[in-house]
């Protein structure tokens, strides 16, 4: 089996071969057998006709002879001839010749007294003696006036004998018989006119001892075989090629066997099988050819595919297959080509993305380096300032450090309290910058101070008030307040307002903020960022809202109220 398993070609060869052989062999044998059966049947019909003809002929012959015996027995002249007393030989002979006229050309008739012929139609010498107590006369004696059939002991051989018909005529005194002989040659002459040269015929007694063997039966082989088959109790035509038609001749006890040559000569059948054999050889060769052709047509593209796959596995993403076919193999090849192209693109994109990530990582590391250094430096400045009794510098550097720390903190959210502290520190720095010309008021309930807000959302707004609103004023006032209220859908909203008493925001600016157009707020980066951050976190209903008052500006920041609980810190990193 492994012989087949390991070769596609052999497998194809084997499959095609078995199918073809099954067809050729079964078909061939069936055809031959069918033909044989058909021709046999036809022949048989013909044979039976001929057998009937010849059977009828022999029956006619015997019944004609028998009727002559009847006439002789009925004739007073002839029966008296066998009785003691004076006889008129002329009368007897003329009667004898008269009644035997029809059969004399093939039969000899004798009148026997005991075993000796007294009157005979034989030409020349008279018929010989027949033993009276043995053979045919004994039979005739026992048959009491019926015709008996036997062989003439004078010329009997195993291949034939003269057919003797005898009947007892008189039983008073010496027994008288009429004996009718039909010679082998006469039988042959009469019978051979009605059958084919290749056929054979035998007329035998009940023990299959032949009277005559004619035609193909002449060599005696068939009668011996037939007799043997009867004795061995095997099928009658065992070991006999010819067709035998066996029948009884009337009630004579004789057996008639008609022999015809086999319908199909053995050589013809052999030739048929030889043709089938030749077909088998041719189909084996054809199958070999087809199998090798098919396997080439199958295995070539598969080989190409295998080689390409190997190449691809080694990392050559430019592998392409060119089969120049439109069947399934062609589709497979184009699929393969598409796949490699797609894989190549994907690989390139991934490499690109990786590179970007790496760059960002490096940048981030570099960015984190600076604030820490700055923070530490500011701390150093604060202590140097304190040591040198320069409180403003100490305050500046301390506040800046606080703001810086908040900026570089990794947390995204912080408590409002922290945010307010950061604003306060920021204002400390700005007060020094702007010669203390404003003050900051924080009016927030302690409970609200614990609310969580995104970090650095108030500083840009306060910065905006100091730089744009309080520009050029010496009594500036900034107030930060917060309150909690219910929103339309029942959620709690934290509203933080930054109010200043500056020159007031202009309408153009309000429109820009309300428009929610990040591009429009170019130059007011702080407010834009706050608005963007809040909306990214919470959605469009939250954000920064600006409003001009009689004196100054009121900026409102709305965020959902989130108490400082572990749940609320969820968004923190």
């Amino acid at each position, binding site marked *: 089996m492994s012989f087949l398993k390991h070769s596609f070609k052999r497998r194809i060869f084997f499959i095609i071969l078995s199918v073809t052989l099954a067809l050729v062999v079964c078909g061939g044998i069936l055809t031959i*057998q069918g033909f044989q*059966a058909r021709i046999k049947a036809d022949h048989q019909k013909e044979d039976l006709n001929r057998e009937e003809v010849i059977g009828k002929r022999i029956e006619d012959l015997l019944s004609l002879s028998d009727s002559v015996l009847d006439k002789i027995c009925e004739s007073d002249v002839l029966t008296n001839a066998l009785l003691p007393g004076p006889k008129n030989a002329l009368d007897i002979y003329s009667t004898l010749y008269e009644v035997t006229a029809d059969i004399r050309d093939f039969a000899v008739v004798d009148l026997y007294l005991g075993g000796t012929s007294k009157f005979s139609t034989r030409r020349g010498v008279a018929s010989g003696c027949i033993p009276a107590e043995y*053979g045919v006369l004994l039979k005739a004696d026992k048959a009491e006036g019926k015709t008996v059939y036997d062989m003439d002991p004078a010329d*009997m051989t195993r291949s034939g004998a003269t057919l003797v018909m005898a009947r007892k005529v008189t039983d008073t005194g010496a027994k008288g018989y009429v004996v009718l002989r039909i010679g082998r040659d006469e039988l042959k002459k009469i019978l051979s006119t009605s059958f084919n040269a290749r056929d054979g015929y035998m007329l035998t007694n009940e*023990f299959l*001892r032949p009277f005559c063997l004619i035609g193909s039966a002449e060599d005696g082989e068939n009668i011996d075989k037939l*007799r043997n088959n009867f*004795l061995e*109790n095997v099928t009658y035509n065992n070991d006999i090629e010819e067709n035998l038609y066996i029948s009884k001749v009337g009630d004579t006890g004789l057996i008639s066997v008609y022999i015809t040559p086999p319908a199909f000569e053995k050589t013809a059948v052999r030739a048929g099988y030889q043709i089938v054999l030749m077909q088998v050889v041719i189909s084996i060769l054809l199958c070999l050819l087809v199998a090798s052709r098919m396997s080439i047509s199958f295995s070539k593209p598969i080989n190409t595919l295998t080689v390409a796959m190997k190449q691809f596995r080694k990392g050559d993403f430019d592998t392409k297959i060119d089969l120049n076919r439109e069947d399934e193999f062609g589709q497979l090849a184009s699929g393969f080509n598409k796949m490699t192209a797609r894989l190549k693109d994907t690989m390139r994109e991934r490499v690109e993305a990786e590179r970007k990530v790496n760059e960002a990582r490096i940048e981030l590391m570099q960015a984190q380096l600076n604030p820490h250094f700055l923070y530490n430096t500011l701390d150093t400045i604060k202590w140097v300032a304190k040591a040198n009794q320069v409180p403003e510098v100490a305050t500046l550097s301390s506040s800046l450090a606080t703001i810086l720390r908040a900026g570089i903190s990794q947390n995204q959210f912080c408590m409002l309290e922290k945010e307010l502290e950061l604003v306060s520190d920021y204002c400390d720095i700005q007060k020094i910058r702007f010669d203390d010309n404003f003050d900051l008021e924080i009016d927030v309930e302690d409970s609200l101070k614990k609310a969580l807000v995104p970090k650095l959302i108030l500083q840009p707004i306060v910065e905006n008030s100091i730089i744009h609103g309080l520009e050029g004023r010496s009594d500036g006032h900034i107030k930060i307040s917060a309150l909690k209220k219910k929103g339309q859908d029942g959620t709690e909203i934290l509203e933080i307002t930054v109010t200043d008493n500056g020159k007031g925001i202009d309408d153009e600016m309000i429109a820009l903020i309300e428009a929610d157009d990040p591009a429009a707020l170019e130059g007011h980066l702080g407010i834009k960022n706050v608005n963007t951050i809040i909306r990214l976190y919470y959605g469009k209903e939250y954000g920064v809202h600006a409003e001009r008052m009689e004196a100054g500006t009121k900026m409102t920041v709305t965020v959902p109220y989130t108490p400082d609980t572990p749940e609320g810190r969820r968004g923190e990193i």
Partner: protein
Amino acid sequence: MLLLCACEKSGDKSVAAKIAEEYNVSHEKQLIVYTSHKEEVYLPIILEFENRTGIWVEIHAGGTTEMFKEVREASEEGRCDIMFGGGIESFAAARDLFMPYEVNGRENLDPSYLSSDNLWTPFTELPLVFIYNSKLVPEEEAPKSWQDLLSDKWKGQIAFADLHNSGTSYTILSTLSQIAGEDRLKDFMEGLKGNVLSSSGEIVADVSNGTFLVGVTLEETAKKSVLAGYDIVVVYPEEGTTSVPDGCAMVKNAPHSYNAGKFIDFVTGYDTQKYAMDRFLRRPVRTDIALSEGFEALTQIDFDIEKSAKEEESVFALWDSIIGKEGE
């Protein structure tokens, strides 16, 4: 096609079955006979046996030596019932082949050749007689006795078959030796002058046509030839003659031994014995059958079969030395 085949086959079968039913012969109706008789002898007898008993006889025919050999083989395989024909000395030489059977009507048979242990049964007697050419030899000069045969007159004139080819030739030499003495055999052989026939079947013809003047042959052959018109005269030797009967025996392992018994009864029965006398001119072994015309009552010499068998080797040696391979 297949259907057709099937139909045809079944048709064949029923025909075969019908024929088998009608003609097949049951085991009880069979008999196998090996015979060394001529066809003209065995066939009428066997056919009559078939007709009378309804038993089918399978016949194997051939020469005596050949048949005894075949019977030996067939007996081992149980394929032979009867050996019919061949001198009783052949049966005696192959006693181990046969089964004793006491023939029905044994009391009617000539006791001189009956086998004491019934291993075989004689069929007919075949005495040796002289023949001479009736045209070339006057009656008064014809040989009358075995002694006459040794006279110088017949030197080179006796038709005699090669000892190697004819059993009868040995019987003749043996008889001569027992009547005239062993020492005369040499004279007789030399008297042949190397003129030896290849078979005993040629003796009658060669005497009749004058090639030889006298000869010794079986009574049956001589009588038949006379009837057939050969120019020979039959003489019964004065001292008497040797008559070796041919036999019939039941073979060991006979598959149809009952029928074999019937066959032996039949061939020694009155009808067949009479038939053999009338038709074959063979002397019957039954005492109740009248001899045909021309058959004289036999004077049998006291033939010593054992002595004859003992001498065989030396006689052959003598023959070879005198006739040598000339005849071959």
